[in-house]
């Protein structure tokens, strides 16, 4: 595709031309005969999902629309930003601050002015923080605004930023942490453009679109793509082998491939010996043998060196044995040891292809073929993003995938699974501390969910428990910032009880999400076209940062203000001294003045980053304003774990997780049945809820999605024929788990496996404020989490939003 060139008009001019012109864009749009004024392009970071792709807001003559920023390292786009102007002047947009006028959940409100809303919230916040401690205040958020929220919370004295993580990327993130000391996505990601063979297990490539572009480049050199999923994801329309799998059985499938690869000696022996802990010797109690066990100085992990025919520290062994099994002499006597590799082989041997076929529904011959293809092509299995949808046991599924990637030796290599190089953009909190010259005191308590789930990245279910039980400490106020609660969480009845018990609920958003009905105050926020932003470029392996520039003011009638300004004003009005700690004073009380506060923080972040990379801050700023992004360097391959040890306890790729061992968890992955009741009878089905390219929380509200998405329950044609169900029929679904009953329309499609029903997780959004005849479609359909009730697993806090139901034709 030819890359078109366009001139960027300087930001100040652009803003003057569009935002400050006094025109609302929709008025501009309706001027039919305007002479073309040339092209204006404003850099944007897409705010429609966490993909945060690089975009341009374009104005040509009287047309305004959004295009991908094709020079950007991670350009857009999908239909969501294409529809962003429908979101901008959406008739359901929250227009004025609202104050609850009925019971929680009723959705009755009165309009209040900004000053009154902020003062009342501030007074309540002060009362709560003084009575119960600042840690009784929780913010839940998704990705929008998240960069700044720790500034507000730390100044207040609360550690409690608890997001959507547990029902989203958590299983993949824990697995990355265990095996590679990786973090949340995209800390590790496939090198898409150079991949030879790529397998997506339960991952719809719904974002980022830059990865779709890179995959398109890989298609030029003949990449093979495999999608293993109970329903065909969007990418399966393209040239992809779709392997329909029984829900909740990914771990068995991957362990079976590991079995094939080990039995057929298809793994990368030298990588596995050198860079993983596969040669470590494990004692009968499960702990690894170290020099200390032999009464020697040091704590190095020991392996059996085939060359020296004796035990040696892993890094000193010439030829670490993968299959040593025997007794070693210690001061305490003889101890039996076996290598990690042996233990892994034994674990995987529980799932020979014939056994895995019975569990996964994938023919044994297909499992063998896929394993061989993957190994021979030195392929890569995608490491996951949005993933908590299969059922409990996901963490082990992802650990198995990462271990299989390691067995192929395809780590941090071209076309393999690679470490993202961070842009080393400081956090907003670090920037504020650099500006004020003082370090903020740390909150006095740990984050509330960590008491229950010690390696959590954010478990809102634990916040719900803390609200209800007042343990480990009371939670009394909740700020819900640009996220959803009801489509996102599980155990919804418990969630409602907790919301009833809170003393203050404040929502900051642009649209009436379901939880708005439960809120005491609703504050209308700016959308991404209406504000500036600075962020690290995600979903690209090279270190890069990008900016978003305000392209439009809110449309007429929408008295929205920057959500972060609202938070800082609440803080200042409640605790002026605490706000002053982060440099926020009354001079920013005007929402436009707040932009100066944010700009000062952004400038500090840019300056510090420039210093880190040894470039001139003004050069970095110029490049950012000109291009919208800056790439610091290309990705350097083969660094970790080759030249730099990993951050795992052993410094190696941990096939056998020492973190898990310390937590008294199984150090090796295994498959377990999902926690919900497994469907047995002919009218019982798995109910899988997941994403599509266009199902993000704000995206589903726009009118285009009435037509691009359906809100039906998908059923395989063979199942439909058996039950006598026709396309468009209404059926009753009854949960096999919590007894919930719901009515849904059936869509008959070959995109879902037999025995499985599929539905989007963003269906059926019900708020009293969704009250426009053209937008009734938003309320249609059912979601799997209504039919799911789940006790989270101890320690890890695994949960399932998938479930099982009985179907009755109406």
């Amino acid at each position, binding site marked *: *595709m030819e890359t078109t060139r366009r001139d960027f008009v300087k930001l100040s001019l652009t803003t003057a031309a569009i935002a400050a012109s006094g025109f609302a864009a929709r008025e501009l*749009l309706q001027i039919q005969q305007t002479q073309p004024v040339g092209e204006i392009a404003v850099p944007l970071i897409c705010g429609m999902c966490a993909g945060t792709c690089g975009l341009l807001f374009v104005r040509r003559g009287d047309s305004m629309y959004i*295009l991908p920023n094709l020079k950007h390292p991670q350009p857009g786009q*999908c*239909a969501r930003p*294409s*529809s962003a102007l429908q979101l901008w002047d959406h008739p359901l947009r929250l227009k004025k601050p609202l104050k609850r006028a009925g019971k929680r959940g009723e959705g009755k409100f009165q309009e209040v002015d900004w000053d009154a809303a902020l003062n009342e919230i501030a007074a309540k916040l002060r009362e709560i923080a003084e009575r119960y401690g600042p840690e009784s205040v929780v913010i839940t958020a998704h990705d929008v605004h998240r960069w700044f929220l720790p500034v507000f919370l730390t100044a207040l004295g609360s550690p409690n930023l608890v997001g959507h993580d547990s029902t989203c990327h958590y299983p993949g993130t824990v697995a990355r942490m265990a095996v590679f000391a990786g973090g949340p996505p995209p800390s590790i990601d496939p090198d898409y453009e150079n991949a030879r063979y790529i397998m997506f297990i339960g991952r719809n490539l719904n974002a980022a*679109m830059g990865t779709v572009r890179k995959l398109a480049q890989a*298609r030029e050199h003949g990449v093979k793509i495999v999608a293993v999923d109970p329903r065909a994801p969007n990418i399966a329309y393209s040239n992809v082998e779709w392997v329909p799998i029984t829900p909740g059985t990914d771990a068995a499938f991957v362990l079976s491939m590991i079995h094939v690869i080990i039995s057929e000696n298809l793994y990368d022996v030298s990588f596995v010996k050198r860079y993983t802990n596969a040669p470590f010797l494990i004692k009968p109690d499960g702990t690894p043998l170290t020099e200390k066990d032999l009464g020697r100085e040091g704590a190095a992990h020991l392996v059996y060196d085939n060359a020296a025919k004796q035990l040696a520290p892993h890094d000193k062994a010439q030829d670490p044995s993968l299959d040593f099994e025997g007794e070693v002499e210690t001061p305490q006597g003889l101890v039996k040891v076996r290598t990690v590799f042996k233990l892994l082989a034994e674990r995987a041997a529980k799932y020979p292809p014939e056994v895995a076929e019975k569990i996964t529904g994938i023919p044994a011959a297909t499992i063998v073929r896929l394993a061989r293809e993957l190994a021979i092509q030195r392929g890569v299995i995608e490491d996951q993003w949005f993933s908590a949808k299969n059922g409990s046991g996901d963490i082990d599924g992802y650990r198995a995938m990462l271990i299989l990637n390691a067995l192929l030796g395809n780590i941090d290599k071209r076309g393999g699974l690679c470490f993202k190089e961070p842009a080393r953009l400081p956090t907003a909190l670090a920037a504020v501390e650099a500006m004020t010259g003082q370090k903020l005191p740390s909150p006095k308590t740990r984050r509330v969910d960590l008491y229950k789930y010690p390696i959590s990245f954010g478990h809102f279910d634990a916040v719900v428990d803390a609200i209800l039980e007042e343990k480990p400490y009371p939670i009394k106020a909740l700020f819900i910032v640009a996220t959803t609660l009801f489509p996102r969480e599980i155990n919804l009845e418990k969630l409602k009880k907790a919301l009833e018990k809170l003393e203050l609920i404040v929502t900051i958003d642009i649209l009436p999400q379901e939880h708005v009905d439960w809120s005491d105050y609703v504050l209308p926020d700016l959308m991404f076209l209406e504000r500036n932003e600075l962020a690290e470029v995600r979903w690209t392996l090279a270190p890069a940062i990008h900016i978003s520039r305000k392209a439009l003011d809110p449309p007429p009638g929408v008295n929205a203000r920057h959500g972060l300004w609202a938070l800082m004003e609440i803080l200042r009005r409640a605790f002026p001294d605490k706000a002053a700690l982060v440099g926020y004073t009354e001079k920013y009380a005007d929402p436009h003045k707040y932009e100066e506060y944010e700009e000062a923080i952004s400038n500090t972040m840019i300056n510090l980053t420039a210093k880190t990379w040894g470039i001139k801050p003004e050069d970095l700023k110029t490049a950012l304003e000109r291009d919208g992004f800056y790439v610091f360097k290309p990705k350097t391959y083969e660094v970790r774990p080759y030249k730099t040890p990993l951050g795992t306890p052993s410094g190696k790729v941990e096939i056998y997780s020492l973190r898990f061992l310390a937590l008294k968890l199984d150090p090796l992955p295994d498959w377990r049945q999902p926690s919900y009741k497994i469907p047995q009878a002919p009218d019982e089905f798995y109910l899988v809820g997941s994403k599509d390219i266009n199902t993000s929380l704000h995206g589903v509200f726009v009118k285009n999605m009435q037509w*691009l998405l359906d809100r039906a329950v998908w059923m395989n044609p063979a199942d439909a024929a058996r039950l006598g169900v026709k396309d468009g029929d209404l059926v009753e679904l009854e949960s096999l788990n919590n007894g919930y009953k719901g009515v849904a329309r059936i869509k008959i499609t070959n995109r879902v496996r037999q025995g499985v029903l599929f539905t989007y997780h963003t269906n059926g959004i019900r708020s009293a404020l969704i009250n426009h005849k053209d937008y009734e479609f938003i309320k249609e359909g059912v979601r799997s989490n209504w039919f799911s009730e789940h006790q989270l697993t101890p320690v890890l806090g695994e949960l399932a939003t998938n479930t099982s139901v009985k179907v009755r034709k109406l």
Partner: protein
Amino acid sequence: MTRLAHLWDQSRCVLCGACIASCNAANYRSSTRENETWGWMRSNIKRFTIETGPRPMLFLIQCQHCDKAPCVTVCPTGASYRDPTDGLVKINPNLCIGCKYCMVACPYEARWLDDETGLPRKCMAGECLSRVKAGLQPVCVEVCPAGARAFGDIDDPNSEISKRLARSRYIRLLEDKGTEPKYFVVV
């Protein structure tokens, strides 16, 4: 001669919908009004899926810019015409009387009725024509993240579209209708 044509690569399209929605944004000012002809958004691209065959199958359908366009043949006023300078099939709204013969004649059902003006709509619409005139790509091609679209002159062997056609297996839709369509579907 210049003959501008669209290429859509079925083997690459991931149905993200960017082309469909961007057509709406650029050409129809992000209108939320329904395209009642198609039961769809106001966009010149529609989706057609086969949900019961052996595997999921997708087609994106839009004006095929036929060299022998039935819509041009049946138009009583000359409002629908094939522009000899670029090979595109266009509508002159000043001549159109809204008789809808063209809509019925099109075997691809690529036209829809704009209930605001009473006139037919189709690819390409105003903003894309303006972009092409300015040497830019049509919006659907510019936005596509999957490399599934190309646009250009098939009479120029060095154009991107010609090069892609030269190395691809492709079909044209309903070729037996004799319309000589210029919408190439790479399979």
